């Protein structure tokens, strides 16, 4: 049996709140077609072109960025949980995987299918 540590990704707390949902790994806004309202947005980093998509997400996870990053600021403005600066979430989280986000602690738990 694998240890629990292998299923957790640590990042920085971007915006508070806890949510469980389906992760969508999206590297460009052009991939919006695979995104549904309420999905968890997993991406490298965000800039203003991403804000319409962030609004539709139930949570956001980014590879890079800190508490003053675009993703963190926008998520706080909408009350969306966010974990930022994980380093490798886009590679570790599989598209469509169930994940649990804790924006307060800055952790992402990868759940079994």
């Amino acid at each position, binding site marked *: 049996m694998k240890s629990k540590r292998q299923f957790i990704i640590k990042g920085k707390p971007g915006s508070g709140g806890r949510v469980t949902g389906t992760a969508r790994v999206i590297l460009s*806004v052009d991939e919006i*077609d695979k995104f549904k309202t309420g999905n968890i947005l997993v991406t490298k980093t965000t800039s*203003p072109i991403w804000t319409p*998509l962030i*609004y539709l997400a139930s949570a956001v996870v980014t590879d890079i960025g800190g508490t003053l990053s675009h993703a963190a600021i926008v998520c706080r*403005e*909408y009350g969306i949980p966010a974990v930022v600066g994980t380093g490798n979430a886009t590679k570790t989280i599989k598209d469509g995987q169930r994940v649990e986000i804790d924006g307060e602690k800055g952790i992402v738990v990868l759940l079994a299918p």
Partner: protein
Amino acid sequence: MISEWYREPISTLEKTLRVPYFIKHSTLLFLSRLLPIWATWSIGLTLLSKNFLVSILLGFVFTFIVEMIIVRKWLLTKIIPRHMQNLKEVKDKYSQMGNLSAERLSLEVEKCIDLSAWGIVNIAYAAPQSWGWEIIFKLIFPFLVKTASIKPTDLLIGFKNKTVESDQFLWKVANENNSKRQQSMLQKYMELYGSRTDDVDLAKPTLREKTATIQSLINLYKSIVSPQERQKNIKKLREKATNLSLVNLRIPKRYFLSFLSLVQKNVQLREDRRFYEFVMDYYIRQMILRLNKILNLDNGIIFSTPWDEIKKAVHH
């Protein structure tokens, strides 16, 4: 290195065309704005302390503090109005591009790039100051308020801002039933918020060029709670956090409220400024694509060509 503004390596055209203008305007800004204040502080402190190195370092800190206090007004009254005026000039050039020769068009592109770089550099200059206010506020919050149960960032959210404004506009477009009116609203949305880009790179299409993405967004924005409605809850959260802070203050209420107001006004610039920075990108990109067409180059090849080579091709 990946960053918020450089997710992918920048194109040759961006590197050889706009980056030199970024360097030019950053240097000018440093020499005309930052250096005089820094030098004055450093000289004054050196005369008092006789320690040159410490004076330079302290001089920089004091300069930053002065800038934190005055940069917002400078940005809102001088830089953004001039930048928006420059946008009109760029739009004029864009509307005339169909009548221009390759040589003339290349000159106009350079002028537009110069204006764009001026705006981006000067607007971006406000970023460290607006972040600075949030950092200072978070650091000293425990000394101002007794309870640890309040998150300082909760006092800085729920204000009118460009992010919510643009998403609210998109929501209105998506939920408009009259198709003719919807098209006109969509056009307005593109004009106002469509010039956002993925990266600081003219090779990257702006939002308004991504028609399929816009259509998908419109479909997703139908029948959901409006951004403004959702932000009301955030405003309530801020009011609750503010009220709780006010009954747990370690300092007089009026000092706290004055400081809070100053911080709240400045932190809005963190993201709002970004909506102005790239407002010219769409028009400049179209002018470059027009040049690509006049020069009979393969589709978009101009973005991977050094600007000097393009100028040579234009002159030939």
